[in-house]
């Protein structure tokens, strides 16, 4: 492969990288994909998929365990649970590899380094090196953990990766930060019976979500036995004289020390650009991320930054769509997807799914709005699932009735939000939501009811029923 020339080289085999490679190959380009670790990236190996597998088992276990009418003893085999997770992911990764190969993408395992804007040296896993060349380059190298001020030791202080390869369930676990990942891990470990403490320095969990959703979810998580400390900043750890791990917190009531078996740091993210040689070709970075313009091009023409590495959000579906959009750019098509409209999903129980503006963001943007709500307590389908907690809330523009934001706390909210995404991308509003027929009984009827609620005309509940 010495000196081989391609139309496109993609660095990184996560969702951003493999989607760009596949899309470009389908458009007839000669593509080479370089992956330094495992195809599938964080999403398949250490993020979305492993956690979703664990969440399912954790929920199944806790539901069976706490059931008032299913009898018999339920025992957790943590090792098997972890095994299943790996079994789920392995064929998915294999699947991606198969598709890539069948579409004609050359895959090289190794580290890529830029020599100039068109030439790379690849240090292959077997120790050999090759140089390759392409007119275009997509950097999709993802993000890495910034655990500061903590030091991950893989034993007591864990990264997400460590938490996903635990051999035994810890008795107690403190998680620093109540963002999406922190809360999902909390849900997983609590479901298996672990004592979970969530520590958040801000005034609420899931700060990016609508205030009403985060307050309701906090109450639900607390009822599930997760301890949540707000206004508490984790500043460090130490080992006590009895050889126990102590987490130091600064709270509004002064310093606090919590004894805990393990601490998990989902952490901040930084662009994973080490060793890429960005400085040799003059690719600008900012705060550890590659700077890109609205068309995802870096400061060097012909080189694009896709996915986590551009710092514009850490969502696999964002990376996926950006991969397609960046290829569309240089194959002469304008971006088809509106990447401002990204659904946000948190796989708690019940789940959170949202898109667009929160009520507060809409108000602060000076939008005149109307809000339609439907509490899951009024949903017959939610009742049959035994999950009446939660709400669906839609923010509409007052003048034209268009959907500005959808916020769901409900079973399967991460699926339901697709309706919101579809409505927003196609600029639909109250009338369109009301005009469709929703199967009964389903959770999706909440969209119909919330649209009706704007005029106080919901079928299955009275407005006073909404807090």
């Amino acid at each position, binding site marked *: 492969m010495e000196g081989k020339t391609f139309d496109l080289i993609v660095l990184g085999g996560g969702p951003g990288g493999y989607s760009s490679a596949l899309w470009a190959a389908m458009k007839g380009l000669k593509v080479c994909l370089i992956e330094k670790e495992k195809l599938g990236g964080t999403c398949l190996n250490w993020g979305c998929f492993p956690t979703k597998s664990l969440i399912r088992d954790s929920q199944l276990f806790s539901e069976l365990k706490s059931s008032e009418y299913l009898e018999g003893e339920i025992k957790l085999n943590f090792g098997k649970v972890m095994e299943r997770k790996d079994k789920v992911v392995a064929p998915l990764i294999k699947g991606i590899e198969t598709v890539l190969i069948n579409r004609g993408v050359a895959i090289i395992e190794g580290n890529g380094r830029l020599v100039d804007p068109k030439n790379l040296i690849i240090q292959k896993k077997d120790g050999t090196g090759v140089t390759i060349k392409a007119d275009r380059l997509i950097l999709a190298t993802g993000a890495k953990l910034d655990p500061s001020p903590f030091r991950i030791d893989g034993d007591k202080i864990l990264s997400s990766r460590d938490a996903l390869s635990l051999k035994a369930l810890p008795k107690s676990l403190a998680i620093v930060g109540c963002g999406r990942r922190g809360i999902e891990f909390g849900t997983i470990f609590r479901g298996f019976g672990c004592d979970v403490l969530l520590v958040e320095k801000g005034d609420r969990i899931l700060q990016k979500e609508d205030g009403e959703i985060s307050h309701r979810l906090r109450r639900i998580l607390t009822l599930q036995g997760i301890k949540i400390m707000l206004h508490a900043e984790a500043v460090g750890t130490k080992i006590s004289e009895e050889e126990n791990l102590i987490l130091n917190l600064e709270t509004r009531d002064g310093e606090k020390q919590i004894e805990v078996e393990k601490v998990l740091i989902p952490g901040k993210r930084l662009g994973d650009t080490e060793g890429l040689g960005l400085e040799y070709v003059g690719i600008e970075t900012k705060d550890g991320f590659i700077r890109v313009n609205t068309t995802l091009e870096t400061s060097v023409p012909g080189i694009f930054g896709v996915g986590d590495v551009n710092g514009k959000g850490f969502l696999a579906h964002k990376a996926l769509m950006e991969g397609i959009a960046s290829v569309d750019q240089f194959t002469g098509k304008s971006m088809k997807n509106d990447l401002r409209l990204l659904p946000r999903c948190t796989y708690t129980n019940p789940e959170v799914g949202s898109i667009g503006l929160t009520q507060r963001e809409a108000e602060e943007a000076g939008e005149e709005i109307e809000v339609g709500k439907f509490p899951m307590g009024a949903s017959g389908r939610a009742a049959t699932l035994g999950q009446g907690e939660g709400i669906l809330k839609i923010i509409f523009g007052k003048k034209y009735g*268009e959907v500005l934001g959808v916020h769901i706390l409900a079973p399967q909210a991460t699926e339901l939000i697709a309706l919101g995404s579809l409505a927003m991308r196609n*600029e*639909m509003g109250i009338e369109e939501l009301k005009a469709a027929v929703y199967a009964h009984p389903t959770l999706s009827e909440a969209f119909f009811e919330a649209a009706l609620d704007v005029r106080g005309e919901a079928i299955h509940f009275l407005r006073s029923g909404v807090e």
Partner: protein
Amino acid sequence: MARAITIPKLGLTMEKATIVTWMKEEGGRVEKGETICIIETDKINFEIESPEAGILIKILAKEGAVLPVGEIIAVVAKEGETFDIDTVIKQAKEVKAPLEERPSEIPIAISPSGPREERRETKASPLARRIAEEKRVDLEGIRGTGPGRSITKEDVLRAFEERTAGSLQISKKIPLKGIRKAIAERMILSWHTAPRVTQVMEVDMTEAVRFRDEHRSNWEAQGVRVSLNDILIKVMSQALREVPEINSSMKGDEIEVYGNVNIGIAVATERGLIVPVLQNTHRKSLVEIARESSVLIQRTQDGKIGPDDLKFGTFTITNLGAYGIDLFTPIINQPESAILGVGKLDRKVKVIDGDKIAIRWVMNLCLVFDHRVIDGASAAQFLSRAREILENPNQLKELL
């Protein structure tokens, strides 16, 4: 079955059309898709085609007629078909609404855009349609950038902006009434009455500033803040007494020269320009002028003055120095004969004492006067006298 042909709705905003010409005669044969009539709307011609082959049984509209959308203009029937024409028209009228749902009943070709083309349905998002309707933007011809090239909100707004670019966008309409109307009328009156001349004189204000600063604490002890404007009122009052033809009005065939000096002070208020009058300033001390003017200005800004406060002015001072204006030519406040525009007080390099360069406080006095009443020499004499007082420490002291 016999078919009624109506004026189609070709755009969101289309309400009516004009019959330009009939291509077929009543009773003539028509083929399916053949043009039978040309109509015009918004300066564009459209061809109306026959919905089926047969006979053009009846023409119901004359050429040149302007008809609303949905109006029946003709009836076409198959050859040999028997029917009652009134029933056909009656039935057509009953199904007239809703029009939007059946525009395709009659195939339309747009001319002069060339060959007959199937009219493509405009694809637009629901929000784009709502905005287009409200802003009266025709969706046709807008390039869609949304999914499947559908027209989005942004596309409509862009088209709206392009349409309105190069024209006036009225953000609000203010009825001409009250003070605004009074100002307008008085300005027109003045402009068309007085042939005016402007004289500008630069004044070295260094001594006047020093005079004010030296006495400030003394005045403050009396509870008054004396501004440069107050000093100007006092100086102008004195100069007006000495050059009385400036302090006058033309009334019919006569010029009235006044014995007392009543100075109007131009005050910008939220409601507009108002000029309250400080009476008999020639008799008042500087401190009295300062005290009364500050009360008068405050009342004016608060909207608490009455008609009496606006009467009997003999001369007006307007000061735009605070806005950074160097010089300007105000309009005479009729029936007065002159107005003084005061410019910005600024530090400038000046030649003084023959050949020395110094940094001095400098200001422009702009006198606009009615040449019917006042001659240039008198006006210059008046300004010179005012400058003399302002630049002379001894004469300033006499103002006290």
